[in-house]
């Protein structure tokens, strides 16, 4: 292995991508090449330093991240509360609708002169008594199919 190939292998090792056979070959080269060995040591130290730096930055940003998460969680909870409230409204919205229907039915239930035409089911009528102070009254009966008539003949 020459130094150029060793440098490529060193970078691959730092990235954790170096196959085992090549790692043994690289180790053999590093044992006999102080320059590549120094390069390997420098690159291998870079990873922990970067991780440490990232940790430090994360600690610095932790309060801001906590605050952001608090806001996000509050937003989620508020959204859920709004959904629950709208669900409650949807569940009970029928009450005013039902009251409106009831009032409508009471107000507009057929009454007065706008009802269906007369359809009597029977003309079977018993006239128990009949009298008048100022008129002559006649009882007219023309059969079961026809209504019984009380006819008032007003005296002149």
């Amino acid at each position: 292995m020459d130094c150029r190939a060793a440098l490529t292998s060193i970078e691959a090792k730092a990235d954790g991508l170096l196959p085992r056979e090549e790692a043994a070959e690289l180790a053999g080269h590093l044992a006999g090449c102080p320059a590549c060995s120094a390069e390997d040591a420098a690159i291998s130290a870079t990873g922990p330093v970067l991780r440490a730096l990232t940790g430090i930055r994360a600690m610095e940003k932790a309060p801001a991240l906590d605050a952001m998460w608090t806001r996000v969680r509050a937003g989620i909870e508020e959204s859920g509360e709004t959904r629950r409230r709208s669900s409650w409204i949807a569940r009970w919205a029928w009450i005013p609708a039902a009251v409106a229907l009831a009032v409508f039915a009471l107000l507009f239930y057929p009454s007065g002169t706008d009802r269906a035409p007369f359809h009597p089911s029977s003309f079977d009528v018993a006239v128990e008594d009949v009298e008048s102070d100022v008129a002559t009254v006649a009882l007219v009966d023309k059969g079961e199919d026809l209504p019984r008539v009380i006819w008032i003949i007003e005296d002149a």
Partner: protein
Amino acid sequence: MLSAASRKYPGIRAPLLLLLLLLAAVPSEAADTVAVEVGSVYASNEGASIDPALGTIRGKLQSMFNYTSYRMLDRKRRSLSVGEAGEFELPGRRTMRATLLPAQGDKVRLSIRISDGPRNLLTTTLGLRRGGMVLVGGPSHQAGVLILLISAE
């Protein structure tokens, strides 16, 4: 169709049910009382028209009387319980007072008094079936006469 609508809109079931109960309650209330209805018909020989509001009575009127025109002037309805009296205003400042008397089964007994101002035109007691009808006619009105269609349900 209603069930499909109620499946689609579950919230509509309750108001629909309430409305149906309400509509059903009105006739049941009427079952405890008697609805007395009075139709005032103006019969004359002016023209030859018969009011469609008279329903099946149209043919009966034509076969019983010789008038050429029958027009419904007014129609009033009162729900009465036993012992209760209802006042009906009639055309020509006449009035009719109906009192519901005790009766058995589907019979209805009515005490009827028709007045023309202070004059007592007619006092009678009638017994009829629920859904039955009796006619009271004769009082003069304009160029013809009044015929009252008195029914009880």
